[in-house]
């Protein structure tokens, strides 16, 4: 079976972002970008399924402007077989590619490639939307399992343990299906130097968003982007007794 893994290029999780003073967005110039951490987990899971002999091919796909191919290259260096890059305009105010649009583009890719499984991250750490996997599953009419922490492949089925609010839940999905990853699914590998070299020769097919027949116009109008109301550091106390005194006074005990 083929596995499709959509990956997103985002601001690295270690970067503390800055909001632009004019409220037009977040400062993205000269900032370290990386693959969304949940997508690394998705790539890793796909590679493990291939290494276990369950999957035959792992295809990494990304949608985005110039340099998005770097993120696809990272997936190839981890071990994905080939890449697909759906190239879009430079991101900015008014031309954000929203999750619904991404899901429609991915649906077109799925229809062209015929994977039995799509594994996505549960959320991207930039817009924190947590929508794309569910939307793709809906548009394809496929079953979904979000927030996966364990995946066991059966005969035409998939048993997925999910992190839910009170604990864990296990679902059995008929393939084809869509999975989204949670943090505890696996620990992604680092790309080794030889694999980074090898990845340079792996193919990345370029597609144009418009030719996939999807309307890219955003449905949400971004009116402003602002700093959250900040919190200031309080005081240091010297002992547990002093702390309890303050908490009593604050009326929270």
């Amino acid at each position, binding site marked *: 079976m083929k596995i499709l893994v959509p990956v997103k290029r985002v601001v690295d999780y270690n970067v503390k972002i800055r909001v632009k003073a004019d409220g037009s967005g977040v400062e993205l110039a000269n900032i370290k970008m990386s693959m969304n951490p949940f997508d690394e987990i998705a790539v890793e899971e796909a590679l493990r399924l291939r290494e276990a002999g369950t999957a035959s091919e792992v295809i990494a796909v990304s949608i985005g402007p110039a340099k998005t191919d770097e993120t696809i290259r990272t997936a190839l260096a981890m071990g994905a077989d080939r890449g697909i890059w759906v190239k879009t305009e430079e991101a900015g105010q008014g031309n954000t590619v929203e999750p*619904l649009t991404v899901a429609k583009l991915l649906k077109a890719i799925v229809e062209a490639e015929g994977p039995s499984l799509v594994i996505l991250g549960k959320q991207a750490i930039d817009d924190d939307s947590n929508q794309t996997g569910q939307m793709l599953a809906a548009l394809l009419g496929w079953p979904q399992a979000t927030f996966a922490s364990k995946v066991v492949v059966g005969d035409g089925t998939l048993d997925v343990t999910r992190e839910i609010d009170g604990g864990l839940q296990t679902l059995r999905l008929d393939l084809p299906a869509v999975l989204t990853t949670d943090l505890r699914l696996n620990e992604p590998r680092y790309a080794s130097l030889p694999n980074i070299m090898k990845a340079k020769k792996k193919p990345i097919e370029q597609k144009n968003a418009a030719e996939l027949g999807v309307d890219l116009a955003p449905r949400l109008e971004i009116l402003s982007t602002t700093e959250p109301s900040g919190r200031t550091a309080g005081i240091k106390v010297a002992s547990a007794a002093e702390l309890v005194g303050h908490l009593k006074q604050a009326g*929270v005990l």
Partner: protein
Amino acid sequence: MADILPTLLFAEHDDASLNPVTARALTAALALGAPVHVLVAGENAQAAAQAAARLDGVAEVLLADGPAFAHRLAEPVAALGVALAPAYGALIAPSTAVGKSVMPRIAALIDVMQVSDVIAVVAPDTFDRPIYAGNAIQRVRATDATRVLTIRTAAFAAAGEGNAAPLRTLDLAEPSAHSHFVGEDIAASARPELTAARIIVSGGRALGSAEKFHEIVEPLADALGAAVGASRAAVDAGYAPNDWQVGQTGKVVAPDLYVALGISGAIQHLAGMKDSKVIVAINKDEDAPIFQVADYGLVGDLFEIVPELKAEIAKAKA
């Protein structure tokens, strides 16, 4: 405005009882200005439906009860939402595991771009939502005719109780064809739920083992009548169960009091608790970033301080 389409709120519940986040999401739903209907989908969920009917401001409760809705799998609940959608101007759910799984499915099927994790209703079509782990707030206007929203419930007060809204039973049920429930492992706890707790005590990597987490963090929580939370590092290391994770990619909480024990204060953790009313941090590193958001900081070894703190609380409560 008599012709305004009502709002449909998806209740969070476990059939037997209504989760308190529902009353918080209701406050956001009411802010849209249209009558609010609450949908309770489940199996033997009469009790949850009756609890929903008691919430102030609810115009009607819709009960979809049957085996198809057992465990609220995303596929059948989304199909139900799609069937009901034409009669509604907005579909809303709290940002819970169920809400996050179901709502984007509905949104895609009715071709609507969802607004996730709403923290403020600015106007019936305009919402604030956090991005980048809460380090920026985006204000968006939804241009689709129908709005699909998930609500960050920590940002809204709970609606009151005392209502007796009418209850209507639906007989729409499309069983899930390709997704089947296998099992669930839900720990029963006498402690308050994280998202509803007034006080939370959280432990981090510093605890060092599941045994120490249990010995140190939990008794302090119990002395305070608190829920227990954890950092991702503590959960990854197996000191605490996954559903205790507080943060950008775990639970987002805003209790009256949040006590962070041996947690450094990574942005991903802060994203889940920085709207707490009072924050206390105990950490042996005086430069730990958690102190930048703490109202009261205590620098030192938590293994010494926490037992003292527990004793002081017992004294204060005596």
